[in-house]
């Protein structure tokens, strides 16, 4: 009876996984299609990969996606961490107000945030393009950094930083040598969230970018009108890269631990 239940359970998980990966496999298979069709597989070919690498709009979209994500992550991680440290030492009222406002981009429907930016840039007469896109990304990334750093700061023992200051450390030294190392895990996970948020964003980017600056999502959206199997090729590469990185991130610590375990046993 129990075995049967377990089988049903596992079968269900398997079915769910099939649902999750069906479209992904579909895209991967058709990226190797010889013809333009998305429904009939006529033969194996790498032509869409060649076309993808030769396509300047696609390559530029990839470039902008990565560059924006990296800069936005770097800026929002530094800015967010500093702000979080400041917040943890501020008066309660101020902290509450700032955190409430900080929540707005996370709670608001993305499209509302997006048009808010658009209205802002337009009314300030700022020409839309790389800078506006970057600013928008930094704005919506910082809240996630603050959110993941704050809990670490709450666990922090205030006395250690006090002691550092008493022992003659400058506030800057206390910050970089004492506080930041202790909240590092929160900072790293904040940075990771920021990177993925920026890398994945479509709606906000769509409303804040200008001529000649597109990310991958905008490119895909603007070319859905025509059958374009190069997008399948691009998707396949993204899937492979993401999977590899995720597997490495998840497997390397396990292997390292095992090695450590072995070494310890030997010694």
């Amino acid at each position, binding site marked *: 009876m129990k075995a049967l239940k377990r089988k049903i*359970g596992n079968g*269900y998980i398997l079915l*769910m*996984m099939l*649902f*999750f990966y069906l*479209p*992904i496999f*579909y*895209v991967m298979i058709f990226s190797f299609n010889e013809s333009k069709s*998305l*429904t009939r597989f006529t033969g194996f070919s790498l032509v869409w990969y060649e076309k993808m690498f030769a396509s300047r709009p696609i390559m530029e979209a990839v470039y902008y996606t990565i560059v924006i994500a990296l800069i936005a992550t770097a800026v929002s991680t530094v*800015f967010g961490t*500093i*702000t979080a*440290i*400041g917040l943890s*030492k501020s*008066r309660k009222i*101020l902290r509450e107000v*700032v955190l409430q*406002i900080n929540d*707005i*981009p996370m*709670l*608001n*429907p*993305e*499209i*509302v*945030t997006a*048009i*808010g*930016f*658009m*209205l*802002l840039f337009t*009314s300030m007469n700022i020409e839309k393009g790389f800078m506006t896109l970057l600013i928008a990304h930094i*704005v919506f990334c*910082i809240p996630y950094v603050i959110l993941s750093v704050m809990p670490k700061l709450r666990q922090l023992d205030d006395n250690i*930083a006090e002691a550092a200051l008493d022992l003659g450390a400058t*506030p800057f030294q206390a*910050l970089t040598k004492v506080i930041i190392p202790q909240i590092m895990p929160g900072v790293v996970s904040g940075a990771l969230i920021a990177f993925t948020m920026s*890398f*994945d964003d*479509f*709606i906000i980017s769509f*409303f804040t970018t200008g001529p000649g600056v597109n990310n*991958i*999502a905008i490119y895909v*959206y603007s070319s*859905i009108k025509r059958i374009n199997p190069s*997008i399948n090729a*691009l*998707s396949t590469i*993204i*899937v492979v890269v*993401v999977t590899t990185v*995720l597997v490495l991130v*998840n497997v390397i610590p396990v292997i390292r631990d095992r090695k450590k375990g072995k070494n310890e046993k030997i010694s």
Partner: protein
Amino acid sequence: MKTFSKLVWPYMAWITVFIVAPMLLILLYAFTKEGNSVLTLQFTLNNFTRFFSDSIFPSVMARSLKIALMTTLLCILFGYPAAYCISKLNDKQQALAILLVTLPMWINMLIRTYAWRGILSYFDFDSEIKVLIGMVYNFIPFMILQIHTSLSKMDQSLIAAAEDLGANKTQTFMRVIFPLSIPGVIAGITLVFLPAVSSFFIPKLLGGGDYVLIGNLIENYFVSTGDWNFGSAISLIMAVLIIFSMFLTKRIDHQIGEEKE
């Protein structure tokens, strides 16, 4: 130590310009007449009366709510058993299963939705069914992860106690496990319902030109019609609606919490 509190100041200026000001601008646009320069503002409620006096707009809103609710329900219906089955696996299998659930989320949502177009073109489904499939596909991982977290955090001794007291499996599930996992379900609901109501590219990619949700309406008024005042009013109505439903779910969450005590 107080010197550190100064570190907040730049961010306060930042959020004033980039978070507060845009929201105020939406408010301003929603309550003013079209075609005004900043100096000659003419306030009006017309944008709102226009929305509610015509049955079309509320019906789009109702359709968006309906599809978001259906998406949320389906996500619970299919996501809960998945999370439950995963939580019954051993630790290593659980980690793998969670990794497999998370992995697609790292791939751009637009690309995943695009992927469904090919598959769905084999079937002669209604636009609504197609959109629903796309929504459930995109949002169900959030539900599974939230429910799984609350299930795996559960105090196993409570379940053992229930069984010791003679409860059968169904009773244990209904009286102990399910009520304790409700916070996870509620967290999942907010993560699914919220983006589902306002989504605009899933209907656009999968539903075809005539499947319009409130997100498409907003996009339409900002991108093609160029009526930003009315577009802002719709955005505002949607934001209020969402805040209201979030408030409602929080209340339900609290009530359940109180009942438990």
